[in-house]
């Protein structure tokens, strides 16, 4: 009964969503075990769209969800090293899986990448991460921007701010007004990774694109010790003056709740925040505003999720991996997934009409290549990134002289 229903659903999906896919589904479905950490409400709804799309094209999705990214990745790595790898495993679009590539633990999906022309539609930054020595080692699932600015309309109204800030200076002005109105200007969760997000946003939007690349990509000691970067650090520290006393240790969704009930004015956080607004039945434009940066040329900071495919010699597993890589990157799958997840698709040649206003802003930004910037982890190893985070969070929380922080960042990025 259920089988028949599933088969029917699969057939309907296959014919409705993918009319171009002419290949008939094989008689025995290609089994693919996928390790991922999409466990929250919206996330598991999103992963379900992947599973269904995969099933519709002749696969069988075996779900191994492990809560927390760190945990899921270490499960994947342990199983890869232990010789019992899953068919696919989720990683972030970062250097996280570089070691596994270098150790030769991954299958490449060159065949799919060449057939589907990944080079033509993937952003260069994503390509740089998944392509190692000319081979494609991961299938990108989505793009997240971790550093959006979110504004509470209720708080802005109370503070008498008519327009959302258009420059970083206007942001400071707005924060001052919010403070004067007795509202927590910057709703911030004081956890190291969130401190890092604010830093990334400050460096990109206050320091600018060139400085950003010099610090994160080139790890240039001269730039880090320079006057411009010092100004960025001081602006970052200035932002810290706008948080409330209860900030340390707060979760990001609790900070978003402050925006929702008008107790907080601005939050700097990733696009997953939309899920919280949606749950509180708040709408963009009416209750909250969003901006990926300031101005039409503002940098758009890219990160996201990928699937990697651990090494195996079993022919049907390799087939499953290739089918997965192809299904994941198809436009229809991309849109369906991102609508639920709150992210944006990895390609811009999609029908964005069903996506929300913020996501459409993001897609518009993605169309302009000169706006692309990678998140820190796209350029840095997990170790460098972690060492940097320690310095940044210490600077945010403590009274560390800015010159010492500059020196500490140089040495954090040296290793």
């Amino acid at each position, binding site marked *: 009964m259920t089988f028949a229903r599933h088969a029917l659903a699969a057939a309907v999906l296959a014919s409705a969503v993918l009319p171009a896919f002419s290949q008939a589904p094989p008689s025995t479905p290609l089994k693919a075990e996928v390790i991922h950490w999409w466990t929250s409400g919206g996330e598991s709804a999103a992963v379900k769209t992947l599973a269904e799309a995969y099933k519709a094209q002749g696969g069988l999705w075996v779900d191994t969800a492990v809560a927390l990214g*760190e945990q899921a990745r*270490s499960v994947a790595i342990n199983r890869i090293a232990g010789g019992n790898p899953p068919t696919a495993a989720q990683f972030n679009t970062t250097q*996280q899986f570089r070691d596994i590539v270098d*150790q030769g633990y991954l299958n490449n999906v060159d065949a799919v990448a060449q057939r589907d022309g990944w080079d033509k539609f993937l952003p260069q930054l994503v390509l740089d991460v998944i392509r190692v020595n000319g081979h494609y080692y991961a299938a990108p699932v989505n793009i997240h921007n971790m550093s959006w600015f979110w504004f509470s309309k209720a708080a802005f109204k109370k503070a008498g701010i008519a327009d959302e800030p258009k420059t970083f200076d206007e942001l400071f002005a707005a924060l001052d007004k919010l403070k004067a109105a007795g509202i927590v200007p910057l709703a911030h969760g*004081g956890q190291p990774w969130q401190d890092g997000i604010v830093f990334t946003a400050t460096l990109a939007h206050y320091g600018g694109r060139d400085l950003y690349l010099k610090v994160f990509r080139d790890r240039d000691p001269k730039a880090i010790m320079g006057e411009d970067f010092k100004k960025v650090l001081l602006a970052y520290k200035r932002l810290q003056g706008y948080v409330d*006393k209860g900030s340390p240790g707060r979760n990001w969704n609790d900070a978003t709740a402050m925006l929702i009930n008008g107790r907080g004015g601005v939050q700097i956080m990733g696009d997953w925040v939309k899920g919280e607004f949606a749950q509180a039945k708040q709408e963009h434009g009416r209750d909250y505003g969003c901006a990926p940066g300031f101005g039409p040329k503002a940098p758009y900071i890219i990160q996201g999720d990928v699937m990697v495919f651990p090494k195996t010699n079993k022919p049907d597993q390799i087939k499953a991996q290739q089918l997965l890589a192809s299904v994941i990157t198809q436009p229809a799958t991309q849109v369906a997934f991102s609508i639920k997840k709150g992210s944006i698709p990895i390609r811009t040649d999609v029908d964005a009409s069903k996506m929300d206003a913020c996501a459409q802003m993001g897609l518009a930004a993605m169309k302009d290549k000169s706006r692309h910037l990678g998140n820190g982890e796209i350029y840095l190893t997990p*170790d460098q990134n*972690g060492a940097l985070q320690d310095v940044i969070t210490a600077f945010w929380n403590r009274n560390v002289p800015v010159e010492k922080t500059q020196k500490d960042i140089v040495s954090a990025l040296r*290793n």
Partner: protein
Amino acid sequence: MKRRSLAAWGALLPLAVIVGVGYIGTVLWTLRTSMSSSRTFPRDDFVGLQQFERLLESDRWMLAIQNVAIYGVLYITAAMVIGFLLAVFIDQKVRGEGVLRTAFLYPYAMSFVATGLVWQWVLNPDSGLQHAVQQLGWSSFQFDWIVDQDMVIYTVVIAGTWQGAGLVMALMLAGLRGIDEEIWKAARLDGIPAWRVYLSIVLPMMAPTLATVFTLLAVGVVKVYDTVVAMTQGGPGIASDVPAKFIMDHLFSRANLGLASAGAVMLLVTVLALVAPLFYVRSRQKAQGGH
């Protein structure tokens, strides 16, 4: 006789194998890894003491060590003093002893994570104790240690003590009950005040119990991790970081097996340095025919 010892050895063998492979083997492996440049996966190269140098240069590691030292001294002292006083209190043949004993021991039945979360809520300045007291009218009341860089480690001590004192009480109470009634009677005849009896007679007689309690608490100090993660996540910033958290962070999210192993080795060496004199004294006592 010989066959019996053979059987005993046979029974012990599985344990010996587990200890040999599971504990000593992994310790050796960690030692080896700490001298390699391992990242996500173990590597076979040899880089000498490079990882240890980096460790000692790391502000975060030094802070973690400092924190665990503060935590260790205060937590062990506080848990032992409070635990002992509770035990003495219960030992006064109070009514409802069973209820009190259970109440005091209850926190120990809670996991570290639950303990950490509870205290996080209690100490949160916006919604916890501070807020409640201010609502009651004492508006200048301030207790925001958990968000204070310099005080946060003491909040971990509070939570740890709250959780651990009950167990200390139970063990101490057992120790107190083991003291012969005759001693009390003799002391009473001599007119010695009760506090003096506790301090000068009972406590020295309870030395083995004290040693057990100390060891249990000390082990808890070295592995303190869950409470910190649940309560402060090592924050604000890295202010309440502890070595175990440093090691776990580098082991998993930072994919730096080498540095994490170096941290683990440092921790082991520290523990050995603390425990070795204790064992030495004990073995000397045994050799001299004491017990």
